[in-house]
Every structure is written in C-alpha cells, then in structure tokens.
C-alpha cells in the first residue's frame, strides 16, 4: 500500500500533539521544570497557528491533502476553511492558556489534592490537537479518534479543579460531561457503523454517499447514519436535546476551562458537522430536516432559558446553546456556501464569547467581584474600557450595530436558509433574533446601570453566592478592599484589547466572513 504522506500540512495538529508529548517527557527528565511546561505549550500553540497559514492562503476550492491513497482521496485535507477553523481553535486555546497561566504555574509539582501542572498542560495540548484534527478529517476513523481526543482530556481538566471549595462541584460537572460524551460517542460509533454499512467504505467520500443515496434502502441507512453522527456531534456543540450537560458543566468547571469548552471545543463540533455535511454534499435533494429541527429547537430553548439566568456563566452557557442553533442553521442546506457561512459565524461567535468570558473572569477576580449579573452593575463607570469591550462582545452576539460583524454573520447564516426557501426556519430564526437581543441587552443594561442602590437590589442569597464565588479568580482574593486598589492584570488588558480589536476590525471590514 503506497500512501502519500505530506507532513508539512499536518503541523497545525502535530505541533500541539508533539508539545504534549514533549511536556510529558520533559517532566520525567527534569521534574523541577516549573513554568517551562507553559512556555512549551505556548510554543506549540503558536507554532500550530503559524502553520495554518499555507492552508488559509489557498484559493476557495483548493485543499492540500496528506495520507492520500492512490485513488486520490485523502485522510487529511486542509482547505482554507479548515485552516481558518484550526487557526480559530489554536488562537482561542492560546487565550485560555494565557488566562490560566498563573493558576497553572503555581504548584508545579502538585500535591495530594491538586493535579501537577504537567498533567494539566499535557491534557490541554492533547485536547487542542484533537480539536485541530477534526475539521481536517476525511474518514470516519480519524473523525472518531480526533473527536474523542478533543473530549476526553477536557473531562479530566474539568475534574481536576484545584480549589477545595469547588472540587466537589467540578467533579459533578465532569460526570455530567462524561456521561453525555460517552453516550454520544456510542451514538457516533453506531452512526459510523451505519455509514460504512450504507456506503461500504470508512472514507467520507461524497461520491460513495451519493451512490448510496441513490438506492432507496441504502439511503434510509445513510440517513440514519447521518442522524446518529449528528447526534454524536450535537452534544459537543450543545445542541438541544443534547445540551443538558452544558449549564451544569459550564458553571462548575474552572472558568478558563469553561472558556475552552465554549470556544475551542465548539470548533471541533462544528468542524465535525462540516465534515459530515461536505460528505453528504453529493446527495442532491437529501436535505437534513434533522439539522433544521435541531437548529430551531436549540436557538429557541437556549434564548428562552438565557433570558432567566442571573448567573452570568449560566447565561453564557445558555447563550452558547442558542448560538449553537445559529451555527447549525446554515448546515440544513447542504451547500458549500452554507458551510462557509457556518465557519464565518463560528469565528465571530468564538471571538465574542471568549471576550465575554475574559471580562467575566476579570470581574470575578476582582476582590468584591463575582459572576452574577449584579456584579456587573455599573461596570461602565468603574472600568469603562472593559465595559465597552464587553458591550461590543454582547452586541456582536446579539447581532446589533455598531457591532456590524455580528449582524453580518447573522445575515450570512440566514442567506442559505432563505435561498433554500425554508420559510418556517427563517421565521423561527427571526423570532430568535428578537429573543437574543433581549438576552444580551439585559446584560448591557446592567453594565450602564447606576450603582447607587446596588446593596438594595442584590438579594441576600445572591450576595452570599457572590461571596462564595468570590475566590473564583486565578489567584484568589489578594486583600484589596476597594475598586480603587484593584489593578487589572496586564494579560487581561491585553487579551481584552486584542479580542475587542478583532471584533472592531471585523465590524469595519467584514470581508472574510462573506
């Protein structure tokens, strides 16, 4: 069997993967490594991100393959969309790494109660490698393995909460994530089996799928396979009804890990869906009603639930659910334009959500801060720039000007739906724009609200909860009693500035999204 290797295109996956291995080996050779692990991780992520450039720079229809069979089909194919998704994954992972840097650099060797840094970094890198491998997968084996690689280490990361007060909750969150992921993987495996049964090959080739779709019995099998694979991926993107773990795990995991779940992990989920949709692209008239139904349900339920939340992490969790619906919306029409629309929306969503999480984390880290809506009251007065960045992120998520990029993204994902003439879906989506605006504007209103009556407005249990969640920041409370004494760490400033600049740039010239 001759197989054409093409290692150079693999670097976006290999760089974090190698970094993970090197980190583990280094720990054996040099147990007192300290922060070296984190630097290695950063190098791995940056290297991977840099390696995505050749793929991104390609033309629209091109793809570079690796592990190509003589028949021409490859097990790994990097189109410009793939490169973009990989860059997004690596970039958001880098943000998470920066966020979690002080927490992980502390207690490098670990103790009986906290996991050693090397484990955390290695798991983090392994998961990131998995995420970057998913969008490039062109066969079921790679898809299964890389999806599991993107999930399993994250379960452990959730469970490896280092703070005693939150450990128990974190384990519960990990259990919720774990059980859902196990069942989803079982569904994915069943779906893969049915796919092979329908098409006769484990390669996700559009030709084989089209051939199978032409035969009535096989087409039912293929449809069932698609639904099962979709369900298996649906858990990762938090689509209804596979979403139940989302609020639970988001709220209990360490905040940087939550950011990872909300940002980087979604790339894997959507990447998997895109791979599936591209494989089904040849089956004309084979519209996935299931995707449309899931998308409609997801955005409606997510927005409705988000409306009620007072805990901002919960709110963001449900917002993630709602946005998952938007991500899946264009995929209901199996076209390449739809795939690009979903990719563009994902980029906008990830940047905005990660920005929102960074701000929430910053505020939570403040001595008297927390993750409740009431903790953000009057933020525009104390930290106008931070509040402005958060406002930009929220407006982007809501799709309101002046954050034009969010609006553009929404228009772009609605375009394939309108082109298909799926009117009921369009109506549901439009209603959800209104619902979504209500969700985010509620938060925005809190930002610019006066703080005079804050003590009165916060009910006692909420204040208690705020007190409990107070040490949720990276270094815990560092005895700074007032707003004035608090200095936002430089890395948070840089992150907020960079992400907000990305959104602003996108709003000025939303070119790449189209």
């Amino acid at each position, binding site marked *: 069997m001759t197989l054409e290797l093409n290692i150079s295109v693999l670097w976006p996956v290999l760089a974090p993967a190698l970094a993970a291995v090197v980190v583990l080996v280094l720990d054996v050779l040099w147990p007192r490594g300290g922060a070296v692990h984190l630097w290695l991780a950063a190098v791995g992520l940056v290297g991977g991100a840099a390696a995505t450039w050749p793929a991104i720079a390609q033309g629209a229809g091109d793809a570079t393959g690796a592990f190509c069979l003589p028949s021409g089909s490859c097990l790994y194919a990097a189109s410009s969309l793939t490169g973009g998704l990989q860059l997004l994954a690596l970039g958001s992972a880098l943000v998470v790494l920066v966020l979690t840097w002080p927490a992980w650099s502390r207690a490098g060797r670990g103790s009986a109660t906290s996991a050693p840094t090397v484990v955390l970094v290695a798991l983090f890198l392994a998961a990131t490698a998995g995420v970057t491998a998913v969008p490039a997968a062109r066969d079921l084996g790679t898809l299964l393995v890389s999806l599991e690689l993107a999930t399993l280490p994250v379960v452990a990361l959730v469970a490896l909460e280092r703070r005693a007060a939150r450990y128990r909750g974190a384990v519960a969150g990990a*259990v*919720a994530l774990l*059980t*859902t992921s196990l*069942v*989803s993987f079982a*569904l994915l495996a069943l779906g893969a089996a049915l796919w092979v049964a329908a098409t006769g090959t484990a390669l996700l080739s559009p030709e084989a799928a089209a051939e199978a779709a032409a035969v009535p019995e096989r*087409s*039912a099998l293929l*449809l*069932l396979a*698609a*639904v*099962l694979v*979709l*369900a298996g991926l649906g*858990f990762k993107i938090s689509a*209804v*009804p*596979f*979403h*139940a*773990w*989302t*609020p*639970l795990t988001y709220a209990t995991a360490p905040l940087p890990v939550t950011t990872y779940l909300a940002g980087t992990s979604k790339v894997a989920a959507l990447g998997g869906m895109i791979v599936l949709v591209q494989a089904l692209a040849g089956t004309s008239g*084979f519209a*996935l*009603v*299931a995707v449309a*139904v*899931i998308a409609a349900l997801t955005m409606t339920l997510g927005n*409705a639930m988000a*409306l*009620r939340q007072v805990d901002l992490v919960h709110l963001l969790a449900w917002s993630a659910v709602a946005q998952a619906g938007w991500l899946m919306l264009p995929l209901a029409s199996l076209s390449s334009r739809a795939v690009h629309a979903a990719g563009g929306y994902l980029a906008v969503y990830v940047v905005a959500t990660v920005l929102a999480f960074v701000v929430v984390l910053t505020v939570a880290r403040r001595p008297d801060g927390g993750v409740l809506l009431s903790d953000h009251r009057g933020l525009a007065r104390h930290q106008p720039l931070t509040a402005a960045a958060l406002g930009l992120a929220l407006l982007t998520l809501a799709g309101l000007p002046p954050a034009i990029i969010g609006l553009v993204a929404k228009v772009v994902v609605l375009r394939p739906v309108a082109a298909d003439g799926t009117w009921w879906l369009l109506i549901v989506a439009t209603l959800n724009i209104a619902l979504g605006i*209500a969700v985010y504007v509620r938060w925005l209103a809190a930002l610019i609200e006066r703080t005079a009556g804050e003590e009165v407005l916060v009910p006692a249990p909420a204040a208690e909860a705020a007190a409990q969640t107070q040490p949720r920041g990276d270094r815990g409370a560092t005895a700074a009693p007032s707003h004035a004494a608090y200095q936002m760490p430089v890395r948070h400033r840089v992150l907020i500035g960079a992400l907000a600049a990305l959104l602003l740039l996108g709003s000025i*010239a939303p*070119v790449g999204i*189209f």
Partner: protein
Amino acid sequence: MTRAVDFPWPDWELPTLPLPGVPDIPIPDLPGTPAQAAVLLAGAAGILGLALSKRSSRTAAWIAIGSAGLVLLASLWQMYSLHEAGDPRISTTIGPLAFGELVVPLELSASRLSALVAAVVGLVALIVQVFARWYLWFDPRYRQFSATVSVFTAAMLLVVLSNDVLLTLIGWEVMGWCSFLLIGHLSAKDSANRAATKALLVTRLADVGFVLGLVALAAGAGTTAIDGIIGHWVTIGSDITVAPGQGAALTLAMVGVVLGVLGKSAQLPFQDWLPDAMEGPTPASALIHAATMVAAGTVVLAQLLPLLQAAAPARVLLAVLVSITIVLAALLAFAQPDIKRLLAWSTVSQVGLMLAALTVVPVGTGPDAAIMHLVSHAWFKALLFLAVGWMGVLTGGTVVRYVVSATKRYRTLRRPVGIGLLSLAGVPPLVGFVSKELVLAQAEHGVQHGAGTAGTIVLAAVGASVPLTAAYCMRAWLILDRGPRRRAVHQPGAQQGHEIIDDFFAEPEVVEEAIGIEEAESAISSSARSAVAVLGFLSVVGGLLAFTPQLELDLVINLQLLAAALLLMILAALAVWVASRGVGSRDAAARLPVSVSLATERGLGFDRLYRAVVAAPVLRLAHWVQWLDREVLDAYVRAAVPAAKLLGGALEQTHPRRPAPGLVLVLGGVVVLAVIGVVVS
C-alpha cells in the same frame, strides 16, 4: 392639449451662442482627479475646521472659506478638463470593497452635467460661507456652523459625483444629519430643535424607501456601480426595455427611490418639514434650499433616469405627486405671513418643477432641462435667501409687518431682492425665465413624445405654476417696495448698524447666547455684500448657460406657449396689484379670510395628518410591543416556574442539573430525530 401644430407661428430651435473657443490653459498635472479633490477638500475642511480652530472663529473662517474657494476652483477645473477630455471621467475613492458576489467599486464619475452641478454647489457653498461669516459674527457656535456647512457640501458633492449607490447613500445620510445640525443650530430655541427633529424624522421616514430601493437595485444587479445597475436592469435602444421578468421588481425598487426623493425634496406627502426648517440661520436655509439637500433628489433621479423611464408606475407616481405639490406649494406660498416661509414654499414648488421635468423626459434624451432649472434655482434662491436674511438683520424680522416697505427704507436691498423676485417669477430675460420656459418646453415635448396622462398632468401643473409664481412674487414685491414708508414697527438698524465688520482680520466678540443673532447690530461687510452681488449677476445673465454646449437641449420652444405663459404671468401680477390696492401693508394676501391664512401658515394641518398617520400608529405599536413584553413575554417567563411544577415528574426528570435525565434527552432525541428523518425522506 396645447399642441400648436397648425399655428402659423414658427417653432424656435435653441441656437448655440457663438462663443469664443475655450482658451487652452496649461493646467498643472495635479495628483488625483478634481472630483476626488473637491469631495476630499470639503470633507477635510469640516474636520480641520473643528480640529484646528481652537475657539477662534477667525481661524475657522479662514479654513472654511479658503477650502470652499478651493472646492470651487477644483470643480471649475473639472468642468474645463471634461471639456478637454470628454466625459465621463471615472476616479476611484478608497478602492473596491470585496463583498462576495456584490461588486462595490466605490468610484466617482464626473460627467458634463454632474460637473456643472458640482460647480454650482461649490459656488453656492462658497458664497454661503462668506455670507455666514458676517451673519453669524457674534455667534459662539460659528465654528461648528462653518464646519457643518463644509461637511454638508462634501456630502452633496459626493452625491453629485457618485458613480456608486453606496457612496450616494453615504452622502445622502450625511446630508440628513448635517441638515439636522444646521436647522437646529440655534439649539437654545425650542422651535429650532423641534424643526430639526421634524426634518430629521420626516426625511428619515422617506429614506427607508430610498435605502430599500437602492439596496434592491444593487442586489438585483450584483453591483453598486450606477452604470452597472442601469445596464443590468434595462437595455437602452431606440426604446427602453426592462430585463425580462424583472419589471415588477424594478418598479418596486424605483417606487422606493422615488419615495426617498420625495422626502428629501420636501414634496407631497413629506413637504411639511421644509418650511419649518426656516428656524435655521438664513445661510443654512440658503444652502439647504438652493443647491444641496432639496436638489439632491433631482440629481439622483437624473443619474437613474433610464430606470425611472422604464418603471412607468414609479414615474407616474412621481409625476402626480409632484404636480400636486407644485400647485399646492405655490398657493401656500402666496398666503404666508412671513417672507422666509414664502420663500420656503416657493422652493417646494420649484423643486417640484425640476422633478416634473424629469418625469416627462422621453427616452433617449437627457435630463438637461431639469438640471438647468436646478442651476438657475440655486442662483436666484440663494440670492433671495441671503437678501432676505440681510433684510431680517436690518428690520428685526421677516414677518410681513416688520418688512413692509423694507426696500424703500434700505435702498441697497432693492436691487438684489428685485432681481431675485423677477427671476423667480420667470420674467425675461432673467435666468428663471430661461429655465422655466425650458421646463415648460420639456413638458410639452414629453406630451408630444408619448409621456401619456402623466405628461399632461405635468404640463398642466407647470403651466399653472407660472401665474401662481408670478402672483406670490408680485405680492412679496408689493409688500417690500410699495408699502407705506412709515409703517415700520421696529427699526433697530436705523441708528445702529454702522459698525463695519472686518471679516478676516478681527476676532469677534462672541455673545453668550445665540438667540437674537438675527438682530445683529452691524452693517453688512463688504465681502458678504459682494457675495450677494455675484449671485445677482448670475441671476441676470445665467440664462446664457442654456445656449452653451454645457447643456444639450434639443428642445423646440413653442412660441405660442411662451407667449401664453408670459401673458398669464402679467395677468396674475396685475390681479395681485389690483388686490393689494386699499390694503394698508399692500399685502394682497390680507384679502384672504383669516381662517385660510392661519391654515396655510400651519401648512394646511399636515402636522396633524402626520400625527394621525405616522406618529399615532407608531406610538400605538410601541404600546402594543410594551404590552406584549409585559403581559405575554413576561407571563411566559413567569409561567415557566409554575408550569415546570405543574408538569411535575416529566419535566423534573429533564431538569438539567442531573446527568441521568440528560441522557434520556439524548437518546430519546435521537430516536425522534431519526423517525422524523425517515418519515420525511
């Protein structure tokens, strides 16, 4: 209709003046095209004017007037270079934008007509800047005013020179906001704020149609370039044919555009904002009325003329509404108790004439008659506004009882006001006469070349406007010049007004509050006076423009029609003169019943109509939405808690805080989805 086929009088073709050849002036090879330079200079002047002139009105004046002069030079240079090189001349702005399939070249285009309009805009803007320097001498917010005027000019130039609907939209919107600022300049005055808001709201309402129309046009064509849009929608041969199957879409889009134009040009049913906009300082009114905002609609429609010709329903809609406006506004102008408001209504009527001329252009000919009227209107209306503003300063107001016999008291005013009114009335050989006859000839030409019922309506309205215009001009003149000499109520200028303002070399003493600036206590500065004189000169001899190659008018003047128009004009003037006899102020409108003059002053109650048709439904909608929010959405949110309890076990099982029920959702969901999938396929 008034077709003079068998009449022995010969029709008269417009001759071309035996002009000397344009001298071959060596022009330095400057970077960029004049179109770029004009727009950039004006825009930069607005920004620099605010940025550089730190509280100094003098610096602001230097920047504003200097740049306006440069803009005028650039636009003249543009006319000259087009004459040399032929048109149109395309130039880029910031380079094309990539919007997927939509091509957005963002180019400017200077053609024969747009260069002419640009030059007129530049000239009027310069004169207004010069005049405003004197008029707003004591105003603490002169800097903002001059900067806004600069930006306004830039926006208008952008619209005029645009070859891309996106640029047109930008200019259009910027003009809307600038007009808001200019009208509301005297921000301490309640009425000014109200008028500004009204102007903004009314034009904004109409802009919805404009934006939708342009977006539809661009989306259909896949490009925002104007020539591309025209090329996509219609095919111009001997007759215009719409691309097959797109007639309805084109009509809808053009109706939208026409609505926007009606709004910006203050035509029925959006006419009401313009007279109220008189709350702005007089130079602002001169700018808005003469060459910029209200004329923008004419410019845009002239650019899109083939589309308008192809979309018959939109053309008929425009023709009918504009015809009604022409007559109605002329009637209203006659009854206004304030000279400034009279001029405002006359603007509404005159802009209607320009648009009317556009609706009857037969296929294959250009919008030259409308543009000619635009140009001539820009000159004489600017002249009139500046002269009336000057008069207001001298007499203390522009209400009839203040200005009675004003030109008798202040002889220097007599000539500019007289020329302006004569030109407005269309007395030969002034510029107004030439352009109005051209519009009339265009209408007649259109009727002969199959403009249909719409053409007939337009011809009737244009014909009716001739005596009506003459009537209100006569009325104004009688009040101003023939009134009793000593009826003056208020004469602040009599003993004061001798302090000559030194325009450029002195820093004014700024008064704290802008109210009362109109009663400025200074004699007019020489530069402002010469600016007015330039306009007066152009109003007299500007008609010659029609005989130059700058305009291509292959119209045939029907001499019979011309004679009839002149006769009607004279009869109307005589009637007004007769009516004015025996009235103390020589105001012919005083013969009207009080109820009528009150109603006309209030714009025939259109305010109330707006409130009933637009404001009330919007408010009701808002109430309804609020109710929906409170009673329905909130109820839904509220009901979520008890509903969950009611549903009991089933919903409790799906409570997302436990892992096991989540699994039920997952697996149950898969089965349901699979069943849906199998059933549907």
